[in-house]
């Protein structure tokens, strides 16, 4: 009997923090509410570290109470720990704790302080439930729970209509994904008779690898993928994530960058056995990942709102993780998930610090014009940590993102051949774009405007982009303080920045010598007879590997260089380029009009049909109309009857009596006959 790890403590502590602040938060002041919120997330981190310390390394199952017991269905609240869930738990609690700490400073001037911390704790509870669940249904509970937490936190500044709408959009789009996820769960139960990971994987592993699109495991994998697309904001269900930036910036960092949006990757990696049996489904995962990576990166190139740049980069980076899963390199995907959690959380917190410094301004060009001499002079810690994070996401050698992105591109290259290499090439181009738009953001935000730069660089049309309004993300405008000059953030905000900067810089070395991949490998092939570690194909010699590595580095440096040239050296060039291809520029600048497309094709017709055809037409017209018709017909039949119908309600009692009499007479006739 293995030792009891008390895994439940990790989510349980977050739940306790949530409940305490929910019940008592209104009574006690900001300082206690903040201390409880941060304290319980810190305790959860300690509990997670304690669990990690005592864990033996073997998959660990912690039984708990029964949730469902009906017919053949038996589902418990049991938790499960293996290398994958351990890593996820540490990421969630670690990054979560730092972001809680940061929020103390960031949210200090906002109303609803206790509400904020209790909801942030609630999110951690659901997220930890998601990653520690021992069966698919409990995972789904966490999955829906984080969806709710995301909805409510996006709409945290609920007085603003845009925030409320963005929350709804996030929840509804996620539910579209969950629709597929649910059907996938049903099919899992129909095929394997259980939701337990062990049972499902053991039974799935005995099935043959499927070819084509009709096998049961392929269909399961595709349905689960629909859920993952919604949660992880991949094509075509990514549309909610940019709008989700209406939430407070630490929320964007925690939920919409580091943890929740990567849940889809976690779920696919968790279901590795199922995806292993379906090359067709995996090829779709690869294609969607690569297309999303390049698609979102291309939009990021022209965004002006710093949070939206980061939002599109999140979508794009998760695309890389999907690519990794698509070639069955789940370890590489999870590795990138981890490094991304570090550097993207850092980027968002840095952006938050910038917004804080600029009193709510989010447009990078306006930030530049409002901070004379460059923002880096006023906020050096924010600047240098932002530089580290930018290097990490761009894949500058030595930083964490370089290791994971290089690994993914290498694995994609190794697993594809011929025309399949197009996905690898797209990934490479996306890496170039990533480096370009991230360094663009860095140069424009923190450096002084170069001589001769137009006020709205790379923005010849002159129209204001949506969502880049002043005070966009920093709370209620009336609460925002107005200072004269930008300023560095307080220590409670810079310490998390520094902590994450260390992780973003050095996190890549966790996989030195493929240690992380070896550590994770058992989670992806839990059955003994499966291959524990996937060898690389023979054509991937050291020489080819080095060539690929050089290519990745060259691409990243190329992006950096282009951004340098366009935004530091030749500030007019960007505008000239944009004017050269106005159609393409407008297409990309307006994000390919995808939102407008969905509105016009889906939402508006649906609303119109519901209103005019179904409600006014069918319901008011046909159904209620026929009722009136029946009533009217009766009225015309007899004057006496009319008196009864339109008369006092009391007479209806008499009607019942009359009916009962008739019944009794009839029954009497039956008996006496």
């Amino acid at each position, binding site marked *: 009997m293995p030792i009891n790890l008390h895994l439940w403590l990790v989510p349980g502590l977050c739940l306790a923090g949530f409940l305490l602040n*929910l019940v008592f938060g209104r009574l006690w002041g900001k300082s206690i509410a903040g201390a409880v919120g941060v304290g319980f997330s810190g305790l959860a981190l300690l509990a997670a570290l304690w669990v990690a310390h005592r864990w033996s390394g073997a998959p660990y199952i912690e039984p708990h*109470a029964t*949730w469902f*017991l*009906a*017919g053949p*269905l038996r589902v418990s*609240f049991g938790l499960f720990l293996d290398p994958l869930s351990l890593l996820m738990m540490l990421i969630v609690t670690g990054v979560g704790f730092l972001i809680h700490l940061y929020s103390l400073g960031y949210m200090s001037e906002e109303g609803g302080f206790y509400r904020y911390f209790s909801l942030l704790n609630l999110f951690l509870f659901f997220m930890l439930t998601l990653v520690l669940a021992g069966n698919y*249904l409990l995972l789904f*509970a966490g999955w*829906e*729970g984080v969806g*709710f937490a995301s*909805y409510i936190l996006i709409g945290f500044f*609920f*007085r603003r*209509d845009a*925030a*409320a*709408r963005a*929350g*709804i959009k996030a*929840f*509804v789009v996620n*539910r579209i994904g*969950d*629709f597929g996820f*649910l*059907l996938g769960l*049903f*099919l899992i*139960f*129909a095929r394997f008779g259980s939701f337990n990971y062990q049972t499902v994987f053991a039974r799935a592993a005995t099935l043959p690898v499927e070819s084509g699109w009709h096998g049961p495991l392929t269909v399961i994998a595709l349905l689960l993928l629909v859920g993952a697309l919604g949660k992880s904001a991949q094509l075509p269900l990514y549309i909610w994530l940019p709008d989700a930036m209406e939430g407070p910036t630490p929320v964007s960092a925690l939920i919409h960058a580091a943890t929740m949006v990567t849940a889809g990757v976690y779920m696919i990696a968790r279901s590795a056995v199922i995806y292993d049996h379906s090359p067709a489904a995996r090829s779709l995962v690869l294609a969607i990942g690569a297309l999303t990576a390049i698609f979102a990166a291309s939009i990021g190139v022209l965004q002006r709102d710093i949070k939206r740049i980061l939002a599109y980069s999140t979508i794009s980076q998760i695309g890389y993780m999907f690519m990794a899963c698509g070639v069955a390199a789940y370890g590489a995907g999870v590795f990138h998930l981890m490094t991304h959690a570090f550097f993207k959380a850092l980027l968002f917190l840095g952006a938050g610090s910038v917004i804080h410094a600029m009193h709510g301004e989010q447009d990078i060009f306006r930030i530049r014009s409002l901070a004379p001499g460059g923002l880096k002079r006023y906020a050096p810690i924010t600047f240098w940590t932002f530089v580290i994070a930018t290097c990490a996401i761009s894949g500058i050698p030595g930083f964490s993102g370089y290791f994971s992105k290089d690994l993914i591109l290498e694995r994609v290259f190794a697993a594809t051949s011929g025309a399949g290499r197009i996905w690898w090439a797209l990934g490479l181009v996306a890496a170039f774009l990533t480096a370009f738009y991230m360094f663009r953001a860095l140069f424009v935000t923190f450096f002084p405007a170069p001589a001769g730069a137009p006020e709205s660089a790379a923005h010849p049309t002159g129209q204001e982009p949506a969502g880049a309004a002043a005070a966009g993300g920093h709370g209620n405008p009336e609460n925002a303080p107005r200072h004269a000059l930008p300023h560095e953030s307080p220590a409670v905000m810079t310490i998390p920045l520094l902590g994450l900067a260390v992780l973003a810089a050095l996190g890549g070395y966790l996989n030195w010598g493929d240690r992380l991949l070896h550590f994770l490998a058992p989670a992806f092939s839990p059955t003994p007879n499966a291959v524990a570690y996937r060898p690389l194909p023979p054509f991937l010699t050291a020489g080819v590997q080095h060539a690929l590595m050089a290519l990745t580095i060259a691409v990243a440096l190329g992006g950096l260089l282009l951004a340098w040239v366009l935004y530091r050296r030749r500030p007019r060039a960007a505008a000239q380029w944009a004017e050269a291809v106005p159609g393409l520029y407008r297409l990309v600048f307006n994000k390919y009009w995808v939102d407008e497309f969905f509105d016009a094709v889906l939402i508006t017709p*649906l*609303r119109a*049909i*519901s*209103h005019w055809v*179904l*409600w006014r037409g*069918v*319901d008011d017209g*046909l*159904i*209620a109309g*026929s*009722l009136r018709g029946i*009533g009217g017909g009766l009225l015309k039949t007899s004057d006496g009857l009319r008196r009864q*119908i339109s008369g006092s*309600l009391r007479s*209806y*009692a008499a*009607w*019942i009596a009359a*009916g*009962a009499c008739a*019944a009794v007479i*009839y*029954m009497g006739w039956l*008996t006496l006959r």
Partner: protein
Amino acid sequence: MNLHNTILTWLLLIPLAASLLIFLVRSAAFARVFSLLASLAVFALSLYLPWRYNSSLGGMQFRQRLRWIPAFHIHYSLGVDGLGLWMAVLTALLFVIALWLACRRSSSYSHGFFALLLLLEAAMLGVFSSLDLILFYFCWEFSLVPMALLIGIWGGPARRRAAVRFFLYTMLGSVFMLAAILWLYHLTGSFGWQTLHRELALRSSTLASPLASSAALWLFLGFFIAFAIKTPVFPFHGWQPEAYSEAPDEAAVVLAGGMSKMGLFGMLRYCVLLFPFAARQLATPILVLGLIGIVYGGLVAYVQTGMKKLVAYSSLSHLGLIVVGIFTFTQLGAEGAIYQMLSHGIIAAGLFCLIGILWQRRQSCELADYGGVAVSMPVFAGFFIVIMLAAAGLPLLNGFVGEFLILLGSFLARHGVAAIAATGVILSVMYLLRWTRATLWGEPSAAVQKMPGLGFREGLLLAMLAVLMLVMGVASPWFLRPIAPVAGELSQTSLTATALRRPSASPAGWVEARAPRRGMRGGR
């Protein structure tokens, strides 16, 4: 006699007696307090049922049987199974909620309002516990009158029309049911549900049913129409939006939470259990109606401008899902359907409580009159969100359990049905979140800003509902245990297999096996 065998009678007698007393005393102040006390007593007593129900034994328990009209073999016969007992508990709870809402000091209700509510409670408990078809029919019809009066006297501006429509339309359905009951008596010579069940359903699997298949089909339809109107099932919901929106909030709690379950209860107890083959033969068209209800109700709810109608159409959608659970005949689906009846009753009651609380402050149910309520009523907003999430089927709350079991069960039977039904999970968040945004979020208008926060009495009620939703969401096995036996009977797989796989062969076997007129009539 001991409590075990008279408990159901006590449950009927207490509200009945309390109602009569209130009629006699004729004091509104007395009625307000006394009716709440009586309903609390009934609720406390009703908890005896799940506490002492023997789930491993299953079947009808707490039975009591007295002769009523011997000449026609009519008995005063009571008893509940797992289905009936939860419906009885739900009814008792709903009246506590309704009377709790109504007992506020500012209420202008006269004593008659409270007396009628208690009378309605007695009738509804009778519906859920009677085992004699005439007694059932009597209670069924009897429940109609107080509700129609409650709507017609204390309802909104269009109350007269709503009451008349409600009364006439459900009465129309009842006529078919009465005809079916009498015809059934004519064929079998019995009004006893258990006798009929034994003779019709259990023996039908041995091909010795006393009924011709055509007769069974017509009888099934006679019952079904009454129940489909009462529930309501699309397209029989013509009376519903108006009745829901015109009824006083306290009555709406009962109407949406409890009376809709009378129809579903009837489908399970009478349609499916008495005519299992007919139910399976007609399953496909009924499923289509249920599915249309889910999608149609969700879409129409999405474009509503008034809260009560929004809840009405969302109910249509949720009830359609329960119909799907019933008519896919799986153990999981049936358990989920019964669980969801209980669960939806509580959710619908909760939603009308929310509306009632808003109404008392703003005298409006129009979405346009609200916005920013979270500013003036933050605690209320919290409860609003919990109840809204339960309605949307968020896991760990009660709405998810039933929804999930129904969808899973129907998926096991028919993939396509479950896939269409599951669109409800998308539609429900669409209309519920739209409602939430229009009510809670945004800048409050001056009128909304003046709305006072939640009172202690209201807060306690909502807190209890929220806790109940959470408990039902995480401790579902406790609630499911009594349901399992009756769900097993509802979903007998052998029947489904025979009726669906060999549609031509099997009915022919039991159809003509016996001449219709014989059977049990000889035995009386």
